[in-house]
């Protein structure tokens, strides 16, 4: 009956494993290896021990980029999840109860469809659109909306605000996805739980904090990890939207941008690989920490 099991298994696994090993596993393994070399991308590979990591420790741009990633890492999940939770709650429970059934507000389907759309768009295209929205003259959407008496805002050209613009775009794109995700979670919370709470005289605010939030905790946790990983990236936005790709004056530089430039523009593949290794451990630490710190007993 189990005749020919092994030829079948090998036949099915050969191509996927070969592709994965060649383009993914090999590339990651080489990143670790190259982080210990001074390779420029051409010629012989020379091992230099931990020189790259020492250099990185002293690189001001590295610390700056790291701070920017940390800023996004902290604010992107908080803002996105808070907004998404509020909207999802309004959509699902906001309508109050009728005949014992908790309803969403009128038109909730329509809102959900609109909110979700940005998630479908490529980050690269979103970046091009918002590069124009934030334009520092009257051709920009925001400056165009401001009254004529205001002097134009610089947005991306202003060191103090450029990174906040990036953050705003990331939030803009992500909120709808989490509204849909949390809505699905809220939909699965039993009607009778809300009824029982309403019977006890719970207000909407109480409902939100005492019932919705705890029961959604697992979904929120997953969302937090996803958004954190997105915050480590932000490459497309920085590369397309910002002044001098990471500017002005390094004000929007992030690790992904540094890796790209060191690999393809400064011929510093070794250094870029060291940055990649640091990034890998940061991502891993973040994911592990989030899952641990936010762990709660099942409700």
């Amino acid at each position, binding site marked *: 009956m189990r005749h020919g099991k092994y030829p079948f*298994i090998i036949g099915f696994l050969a191509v996927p494993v070969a592709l994965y090993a060649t383009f993914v596993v090999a590339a990651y393994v*080489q990143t670790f290896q190259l982080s210990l070399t001074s390779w420029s991308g051409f010629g012989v590979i020379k091992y230099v021990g931990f020189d790259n990591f020492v250099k990185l420790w002293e690189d001001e741009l590295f610390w700056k980029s790291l701070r920017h990633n940390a800023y996004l890492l902290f604010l992107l999940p908080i803002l996105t999840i808070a907004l998404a939770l509020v909207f999802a709650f309004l959509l699902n429970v906001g309508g109050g*109860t009728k005949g*014992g059934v908790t309803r969403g507000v009128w038109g909730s389907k329509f809102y959900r469809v609109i909110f979700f759309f940005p998630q479908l768009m*490529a980050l*690269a295209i979103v970046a091009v*659109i918002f590069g124009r929205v934030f334009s520092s003259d009257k051709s920009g959407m925001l400056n165009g909306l401001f009254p004529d008496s205001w002097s134009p805002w610089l947005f991306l050209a202003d060191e103090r605000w450029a990174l906040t613009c990036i953050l705003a775009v990331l939030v803009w794109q992500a909120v709808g996805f989490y509204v849909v995700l949390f809505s699905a979670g809220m939909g699965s919370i039993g009607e009778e739980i809300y009824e029982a709470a309403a019977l006890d005289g719970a207000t909407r605010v109480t409902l939100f904090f005492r019932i919705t939030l705890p029961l959604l905790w697992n979904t929120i946790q997953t969302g937090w990890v996803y958004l954190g990983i997105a915050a480590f990236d932000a490459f497309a936005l920085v590369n*397309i939207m910002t002044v001098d790709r990471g500017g002005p004056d390094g004000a929007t530089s992030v690790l992904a941008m540094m890796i*790209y430039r060191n690999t393809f523009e400064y011929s510093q593949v070794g250094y870029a690989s060291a940055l990649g290794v640091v990034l890998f451990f940061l991502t891993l630490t973040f994911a592990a920490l989030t899952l641990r710190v936010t762990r709660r007993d099942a409700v």
Partner: protein
Amino acid sequence: MSNLTATAPSETVVTPKAEKTHRELRAFNGLAHLALIFWALVTAGPLLWVVLASFKSNTEIFLGEPFALPSTFSLETYLSAWDQAHIGQYFLNSVLVVVISTAGTMLFGSMAAYVLARYSFFGNRFLYYLFVSGLAFPTFMALGPLFHILKNMGLLNSYLGLILVYIAYSLPFTVFFLAAFFKTLPHEIDEAATVDGASHTRKFFQIMMPMAKSGLVSITIFNIVGQWNQYLLPLVIMQGQGAEEKWVLTQGIANISTQAGYHAEWSTLFAALTLSILPMIVVYAIFQRQIQAGLTAGAVK
């Protein structure tokens, strides 16, 4: 009297309290709508603005009335975006690459997932975790090595290279998701087919694949959207002599945006953006339920 719940009859008796909650409810509903309309405007506003600006002349764009209607509606900018700015070409390139790479991802991904989920053999766990660990690595940390691997294989600046890399980088999530899915399928049918003499391969294609249809649809949508929107990988792979003609849509748009800055051809850029968003809106309008389900599937698991 929507505030009166069947489960709280006491409120129907105490009229003043009912009045009060009624008013509160209305105020709350009003605020809720205000907040939701606000976000709907924030979401749709920039897109609407792009469409309007695509019909405007440069002078009109710089007038600073972003939501004013254009003075004339002509498709000239669209023709120039399609033709001179090569949006048509980029669009077709994207379609070509994504059709093949998603098909490949689904075929190889489901084959690997099926075997890993339902057959026990030496090394099974190792391979499974090898695939799944790919989820923890950010794509851009290995850009340099990936570039040189492709260069050594002569696959740089070729669709084949791009497609193979798309497939490889889509496998972790596809395998992770589908393996979990194949595990849940009942074993009885599987065994019955074996008794009837179906081969392993036939069982996979004629019994398991149809049974896994809902999971396959979700993950196919997930991969189409993910690969269509990819920007970093094509940027790394499609460079070199004559690469411009092979660019995919995301790359093309980013480049038009840079060019528009030099030549002050903003309306062409807006037309190009509209052309690249419009098909998505149409597809989304038709399949919005499936698309939402497909994209959120990963997070729910």
